[in-house]
């Protein structure tokens, strides 16, 4: 079964925090404002739409979505 997976590129990310705002269920923020999410974190189906929105709206294009 293919699942949507989310990874944040730590080099590109500049702590704008949009991803954590849209997906508080799976993305936390550390004390410096950077997103805390396991690389390849599975996105539950009901959050898929928000995940795509996060990927689109990240100003640094740092949210990487993969299927697998």
């Amino acid at each position, binding site marked *: 079964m293919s699942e949507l997976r989310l*990874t944040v*590129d*730590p*080099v*590109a*990310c*500049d*702590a704008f925090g949009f991803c954590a705002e849209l997906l508080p269920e799976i993305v936390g923020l*550390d*004390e*410096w*404002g*950077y997103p*805390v999410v396991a*690389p*390849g974190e599975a996105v539950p189906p009901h959050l898929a739409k928000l995940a795509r929105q996060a990927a689109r709206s990240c100003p640094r294009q740092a949210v*990487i979505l*993969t299927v697998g």
Partner: protein
Amino acid sequence: MTTATTSAAPRGAATPARLAERRLAPATGHAPAAGSERRDGTTRLLGAWQAHQSARLAEHLAHHGPPVLPPPRACGWADLLARLVADAGLTGRGGAGFPTSAKLAAAARAGERRWLVVDGLEGEPESAKDRVLLQCAPHLVLDGAELVAAALGADRITVCVAADQGATATAVHRAATERERTALAPVPVELARPPARFLAGEESALVNWLRCGTALPTFRPDKAVPLAIGRRTMLVHNAETLAHVALVARHGAKWFRHAGTADAPGTTLVTVSGAVARPGVVEVELGTPIDTIVAAAKPTATVHAVLVGGRGGTWLGTNDMGTPLAPRALRERGAAVGAGILVALPAEACGVAEIARMATAMAAESAGQCGPCVFGLPAIADDLRRLAAAAAPSGPGSRSGIGADPDLGTRLQRRLGAVTGRGACRHPDGVVRMVRSGLAVFADDVARHGTGRPCTAATPVAGPARDAATRWQT
């Protein structure tokens, strides 16, 4: 970039059949000019230098015999070489300890064009072994590099030596020029001088530097995808690893396994520094107890702990100092052989001051790309400096005993957890490993700082081994 190229015809010192034969039955007869190699296996890499005090081609060939190279237009050598190296059980000597055969096989599968990079950068200030090897036995490294390049069909070899390592670069350049005049050197060898920074030797940073001149690690969501520049698959091997490949090809896998242990065969170069009278580089069998290696370097004081693997490594306390220098035994103690760095800390030094100093240096070496590393490491280093400086007597109610900053302990632990695994490279993870192991090993020092008892000696002892590194030659 200095270049020493040649288009000399390849020289077939052995055929695939002979190579295979060696792989299958190398029992005894295959130690041609290797009579001077001691049975304890500690002069494999540096034997020619120790016997002749010369790094020149003539002495190299007299000592080791001719190198193994595929004959022109030979095929099937990539597989043969990968199998031979797998039988020998050779693992990378650059730090990660990855099986060399797996790396060769992956590169052989990927794409058509290849570029071999010889990593001699040694970003760790406490490491000097690749520099010593490239100065004393450059031809052994080039033998291995040319064999790997020729077997895999790489059309370029670049030897990377840090910009501040002039003598090493000269040695490599001289060796490459010397080979140019002979029939050796089937693939052009060039010398490159990346910046002398801690992270420049990280594989993706090195490839990035060769690509565009920026020595920064790149984020790789899938590490199984090999690095590439244009259409060339990049193959990065540590200098010492290639020297071992040259010897395995000459003498066979079984010979290689005569030294070391069953699960960690062969020898390895180790740089010993810290509170020792004879700091420097030695070749030891894998599996040699760490305290034995340190003792041979003549400690100047009672050794209280040893840092294994450098600034991204692990502190081992008195109880664990007899651990064999081998992956499995070290893994059980949360450590790894790494690039073979051992730093001895004397009993009178302060462990807390030492980890604070190292963490501060590591924070400054962050490549400044990933937030958790850029902000997290300085924050961790700052906590450690506060801990090192803490001398105020703790009140009766003080939780962690850290006087004026009672949250220090928990904050530090939280931050160590927060940066783990969150960089594009493993830099933050290494710092966390070093700090965590240090806090455990120096628990007494930590407690003493916590209760405000002044620290007896906060003198840093783990100074760079670099200047003293060639001391073993005497």
